[in-house]
Structure formats: C-alpha cells, structure tokens
C-alpha cells in the first residue's frame, strides 16, 4: 500500500514546481545531510539513521501542522533540489519560513529566491501569516543574503529556538519585496 500527502498545495513559479515531500526524495536529502554545506541545519554528529528520522519529520510535519516544507523541483524534472516552506515544530517561538538547497548544482541560479518568494505569498494568503521570521545562523552568509533579497531584516527582539548566540530571527516584510 502507499500513503501519499494528497490534499497538499503545489506552487508553480517561472522555473520551479514546489510540491509536498515524498519517500523518493530521501536519497537527495541524505546526500545533502552528508555534505559540509548542510552543517548550518543539522547537528554535527548526524547519523544516517537520524537523518532518516529527520526526513520522516519533514514529511510528518505536513500531517501534524497541515503545512510544511515544499520540495523544489525544476519544471519537467521531479528531482528534489531543496526545500522551502513554512515550518513550525514544537519549541519554535513562532512559525518561520525555512529553506535549504540540497544540490550544489542548484545553487547560484536564484532558485531559492524564486521558491521563497512564492512561499512568502503562499503563507500570507494561504496560512494568514502576516510577517513570519526565518531563523538563520549568524555565520550563514548565503542565507542572510537571500533573506535580505527577500526584504527581511533582523528582528533583534524576537526569541530564537536553541542557541541565542548562533541564530538570528529575520523578519519578513508585510508585502512582497520590490
């Protein structure tokens, strides 16, 4: 038998299709978790077993919250390139928009910006989130640059999950960045 996340929205942008995660995305997620590039978004000692459980949670978050990380795919190719979406696990001070680009080959093309822009609009109209945050490592310059491009600014008064010295809350604009 198979159990899929049906009833989930699909967002389409100029070059991308954003869809719910599925089991076929596991190898791409695993590959990302094995790379140095993922060190901002995982514990240093992540085992294969716990990476699998983490991806199970990425899927299960949709079931529990009704929303979650969309998988980025290029139009015409269902391969997972990364994930962008609303994210609100237990312990988060407030809901955020998260993003990760899994494939190095998908970096530097503006895919994360294109996807995150669509997700900004989606959470505003679909979930009623006026100004969510994105939690970003203080050393993650690439992600900070994307946040700026999305019109976000650091909200120093917003609490962060986990290590206060390592994370900042970037507040999204009320309207789409120009």
């Amino acid at each position: 038998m198979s159990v899929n996340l049906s009833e989930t929205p699909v967002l389409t942008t100029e070059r991308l299709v954003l869809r719910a995660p599925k089991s076929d995305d596991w190898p791409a997620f695993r590959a990302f978790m094995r790379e140095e590039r993922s060190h901002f978004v995982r514990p240093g000692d992540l085992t294969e077993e716990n990476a699998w459980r983490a991806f199970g949670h990425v899927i299960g978050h949709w079931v529990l919250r009704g929303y979650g990380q969309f998988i980025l795919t290029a139009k015409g190719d269902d391969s997972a390139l990364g994930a962008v979406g609303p994210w609100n696990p237990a312990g988060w001070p407030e809901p955020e928009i998260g993003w990760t680009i899994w494939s190095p080959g998908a970096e530097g093309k503006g895919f994360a910006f294109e996807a995150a822009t669509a997700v900004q609009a989606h959470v505003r109209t679909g979930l009623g989130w006026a100004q969510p945050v994105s939690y970003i490592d203080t050393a993650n310059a690439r992600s900070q640059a994307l946040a700026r491009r999305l019109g976000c600014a650091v909200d120093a008064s917003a609490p962060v999950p986990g290590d206060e010295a390592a994370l900042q809350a970037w507040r999204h604009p009320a309207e789409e960045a120009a």
Partner: protein
Amino acid sequence: MTPALDLAQSFDSLIPRIETPRLMLRAPRLSDFDPFATYMQSDRSRYTGGPVDRNQAWRGFGHIAGHWVFRGYGVFVIEHRETGQAIGTSGPWFPEGWPEPEIAWTLWTSGFEGQGLAAEAALAARGWAYEALGWTTAISLILEGNTRSETLAQRLGCVREGGFSHAQFGATGIWRHLAPDAQGAGMEAYA
C-alpha cells in the same frame, strides 16, 4: 475547512482503522502529540528512545507520521474505545538502521498496563502486517532490560533468536514472531 484539517483527514483516510474488542488502531493525529510527549518525557520511555524533551518528542512524532509515507505502513495509535484516549502505539516499523522490519508497541501510561491491551493491539497489528502487507515473518526488537516487553513477546509466541546492537539505542534482543500460518489469533480473531 482549513488546509490543515483537509490534509489531516486525507492522511487519516489513507490509513486503515483496525478494531479489536477494546481498542481502535488508527492513524496518528496532532491531538495524540500531548500524551505521546508526556510519555517520551517520562522514564517509561527509557526502552523506546527516551526520555527526551518535548521538542525532540515532536520530531519523533513527526517521524511516526512520516514513516507511513516513507514505507506505506507504520505504527498505529492505539485508541482505548471505552474512554477515547490515545494510549500508545503498535504496528509494523522499519526505520533506517533496523536489521529487519519489526512489530513495535508502546503503552504511554501505567494506568493501562496489566490488562492485556498491548497484546491485543500487537496481535491485531501483526495480523495486519501479515494479511495486508504480506509479511511472511516479523521480529520485535526489545532493548535489554525491558522485561515487561519480553514477557509480552513471549505471550505473543515470540522466540528470542539473538541480539542486535543499535548504534544509538544499545543492545537489543531480536524476538521472532510466529509465522503467519502458525499465528492462530491474528487480525481475523477480532474481525
């Protein structure tokens, strides 16, 4: 209806419901998280990956839901029909790193112990794995020292056939279940 409700109901409808005399095995839901988190924060969970804090418990519960999508099967939440309470989990379970698929069970509070409820759930879950999934064999992995679960395994007809050392959880016993044709009282006993 909100998108969240649509999705939760759709997920629920994809997962079977199994009724036994006293229990209903059904899909995990957000409302089950609180009793699950209470269990995972307590010493009762010491043989099933706990205790952990509530935030880690959330990720564990998310994985329970996600496992269904990954594998097409997973652990059911055990609902106590008389009270409507979610009291534990049981079902086929095969996360990365397991030596082979198992039949798992947990009871979240001591108040429901000692009534044969875990056995009732595990028998139904095993019957479902054999009949609906076509499993021809099954194990249960039981952490060393979990004598209550070992007693239950024996009651279900399991025989210990060795051990498995899990990198994170430690030494476990491998308990082999009765084969489908020998199980006698599987799901059909409660049909």
